[in-house]
């Protein structure tokens, strides 16, 4: 730790952090747009300039590190003047499409513009004819909003995908989807949450959903584990606020007939996945077994590493499995024609939109999930309908499919699927006599976590991976080292998903995840098998192999370039 001074304030600073981060921690606002702690500083926007006593010129605080005794100024007349000009210049290349923007209400560009009193359209828009791209019906890239920071290119590369590329064309470079036939988008959406100007966004189906409600369809919502600890952010609540019941009440106000919890789907996945794991371990076939509930990871395997398709567990993902249960078991019980049921998932994810459209997932010719909203899109629907999650009174989940275990809830964090599956594997192999529920070795957000669990005489070598580039590493460098590998494409797992609210960073992801583990900790039912709803579904519906196969299992296919 060293001593520095920023704008007259004496600060004891960590010399490993850059000055921008130190300032933020000390409530000194240095404006910045392109800086994101997940990405190596781009030094592109030039807003975060500072003066350092004794040194000539201005410096970007995002890439300057403190030295003992450094005296820093963040607001000299020259700095303020050039900041205004740079912001105006960025507005001159960014077409404001505020009402549909992910950053609406939180937009730093607008905030600074107001604070500094600048005219945002002093210059004519340079990018008015710039093109729009669609990726897999999941993500839109509107290049007329781009401020050329290229964070998207970097985060795509950090993911190991490298699908977004810089193309030099005429006087300016453009960011374009790769034409290389060996590269394709996996729809993880990290570009969406790392873009400071709302250039990337999820494809929003909310108007269609409103129409279904108006047309008196039987609209059922199901919401993913991780959104209960993140959507509150859209209503200025603390990071990690748990709002499960409030989400249910809010969705009901939108006109949904029923609201269910995808964590129940996760419990069903856990049971089948644990069965499959035990079987593969006993027959020593198709190991390691990889999880497949993350659709971006599945697409990654299908497109980039098809040789590993047999290693993916063939159990469907939680949203698809529960969607299928809703349109079969639930429909039958409630005596509703499944054709009239519209299932809407609320997911932290953009890739789930793509997954929901996969043809092979249909049951009796019907899609299991009709529409997928992201966390942010649901929040926008709430805001549009004057529903404030921070103020609304909570409601309980609907019966019949009402209970989810704590194990199903932790699916939302990296390590949660593995922990849940291992709890169930222990439960099965040890005849319910288990003494360990918490597998803390799977938790935390390091890229690759390794652990080994011994049940009876079976030793299971496990890796928990978040961030696709880490999964790529395992496939390429040591594909045979483990028996069971959980992969989540996004940093931190679904809590860091591409459909989550912005901003996002390591600390925010951790707070969202910590709250999920807290929910699990407080649950009475913490093993999928002990969930009474799960037990009834198996007793009444998933009675034989044939039905289980139809409802819970799928196949994967080698994929050609789609974008």
């Amino acid at each position, binding site marked *: 730790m060293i001593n520095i001074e920023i704008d007259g304030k004496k600060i004891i600073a960590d010399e490993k952090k850059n000055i921008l981060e130190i300032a933020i921690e000390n409530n000194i606002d240095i404006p910045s747009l392109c800086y994101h702690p997940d990405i190596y500083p*781009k*030094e*592109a*926007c*030039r807003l975060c*300039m500072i003066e350092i006593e004794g040194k000539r*010129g*201005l410096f970007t605080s995002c*890439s300057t590190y403190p030295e003992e005794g450094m005296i820093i100024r963040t607001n000299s007349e*020259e700095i303020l*003047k*050039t900041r205004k*000009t*740079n912001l105006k*210049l*960025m507005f*001159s*290349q960014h077409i404001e499409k505020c009402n549909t923007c992910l950053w609406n209400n939180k937009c730093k560009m607008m905030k600074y513009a107001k604070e500094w009193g600048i005219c945002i359209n002093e*210059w004519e828009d*340079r990018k008015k004819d710039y093109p729009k791209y669609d990726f897999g019906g999941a993500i839109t890239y509107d290049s007329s909003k781009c*401020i*050329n920071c290229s964070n998207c290119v970097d985060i795509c590369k950090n993911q190991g995908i490298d699908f977004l590329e*810089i193309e030099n064309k*005429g*006087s*300016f*470079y453009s960011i374009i989807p790769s034409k290389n036939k060996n590269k394709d988008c996996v729809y993880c959406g990290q570009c969406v949450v790392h873009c400071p100007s709302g250039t990337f966004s999820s494809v929003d189906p909310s108007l269609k959903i409103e129409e279904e409600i108006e047309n008196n369809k039987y609209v059922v919502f199901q919401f993913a584990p991780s959104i209960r600890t993140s959507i509150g952010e859209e209503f200025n609540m603390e990071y990690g606020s748990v709002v499960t019941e409030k989400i249910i009440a809010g969705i009901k106000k939108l006109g949904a007939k029923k609201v269910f919890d995808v964590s129940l789907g996760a419990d069903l996945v856990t049971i089948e996945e644990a069965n499959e794991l035990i079987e593969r371990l006993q027959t020593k076939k198709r190991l390691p077994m990889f999880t497949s509930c993350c659709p971006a990871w599945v697409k990654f395997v299908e497109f980039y590493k098809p040789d590993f398709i047999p290693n993916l567990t063939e159990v469907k993902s939680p949203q698809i499995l529960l969607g299928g249960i809703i349109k079969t078991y639930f429909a039958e019980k409630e005596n509703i024609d499944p054709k009239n049921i519209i299932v809407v998932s609320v997911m932290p994810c953009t890739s789930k939109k793509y997954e929901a459209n996969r043809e092979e997932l249909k049951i009796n010719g019907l899609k299991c999930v009709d529409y997928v909203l992201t966390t942010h899109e649901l929040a926008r629907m709430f805001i549009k309908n004057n529903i404030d999650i921070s103020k609304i009174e909570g409601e309980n989940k609907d019966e019949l499919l009402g209970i989810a275990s704590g194990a199903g809830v932790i699916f939302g964090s990296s390590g949660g699927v593995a922990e849940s599956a291992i709890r169930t594997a222990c439960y099965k192999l040890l005849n319910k006599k288990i003494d360990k529920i918490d597998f803390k070795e799977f938790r935390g957000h390091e890229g690759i976590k390794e652990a080994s669990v011994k049940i009876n005489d079976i030793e299971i070598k496990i890796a928990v991976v978040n961030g696709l580039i880490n999964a790529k590493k395992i496939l390429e460098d040591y594909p045979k080292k483990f028996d069971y590998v959980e992969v989540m494409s996004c940093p931190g797992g679904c809590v860091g998903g591409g459909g989550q609210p912005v901003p996002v960073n390591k600390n925010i992801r951790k707070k969202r995840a910590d709250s999920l583990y807290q929910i699990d900790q407080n649950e009475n039912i913490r093993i999928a098998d002990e969930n009474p709803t799960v037990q009834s579904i198996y007793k009444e519906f998933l009675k034989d192999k044939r039905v289980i196969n139809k409802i819970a299992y799928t196949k994967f296919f080698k994929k050609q370039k789609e974008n």
Partner: protein
Amino acid sequence: MERDIIQKLKIADLRGRGGAGFPTYLKWESVLKTNAPKKYIICNAAEGELDLKKDKYILEHYSKDVISGIKIALKAIDNSSAYIYLNKEYYSLFKDKLKDENIVLIEEDNGYIGGEESALINFIEGKRAEPRKKPPFVSEKGLFNMPTLVNNVETFYYVSKIEKGEYDNERFYMIMGEKIKGGIYELKEGMTIREILKNTKNYLDRPFYVQAGGGACGEIMTEDEFDKPVLGEGFIRVISYEEDPYSLMERWAEFLVNGNCDKCTPCREGTYRILEMIKGRKLDIDKLEEIFLTLEKTSFCALGKGTPIPFRSLIKKVILKNHD
């Protein structure tokens, strides 16, 4: 041997001829002093400045001396490999002439910024040709993170002259203009604009001003400044007062908009707005000055920081003066 050449470079006071004028011996010393398993030498033949053709002239007439300059570096620096980084045109013109088993030729098409030493290193590494943050300087951490000596074609040419004891403070000048003959001349360093133009019979017989240093980035100098030496890349553009200053500015702006790397806001967007204004032939001096200040103070690299120099000086010394 290595001490010897450094000493010679120091005594000769050779300065980099790529434009920045940094003492050559300091670069060499830094590369030599930095401990590393591998070192690189790059001869920069990108010559991307507007209208500048002096390196082309040297490669045309003295390619052997340039190669021998590079070889002196190869000998002086242990475990080193050498590259010549050539723009497309020069590559096709000189690839046969420059063929040497110890030197790798690299063809590039990266425009003006592609000649910046860290940008060219990025390009050789397979990355986008945009400048790196300094420090670290490329002489400590350059190509593949190894100490890298980047010198201009002319610099290597004079290294070989110094080694042979044939250097006597010369440098190459390029003179051009609509109303003069112009050409490329090897003359003493430090000569004034007036001396150079008179000596080479390029001194116009009617009122004129010059752009000195580089073809886009050089400063405008009027008659009262003709007793200053020419720095930078040794370029002089002779401009008579009858010529349209706007078309000259438009050429600069066009060149800079195309030649920058687009990485940072002021250079990418600011230069574009300068061009827009000049094309419209209507200068809003306050707006321009706002962009100039932002370019000068907040650009990532020297290209953006230096962009205001020609415009500001032309506007102040010629355009506004004529209005008075």
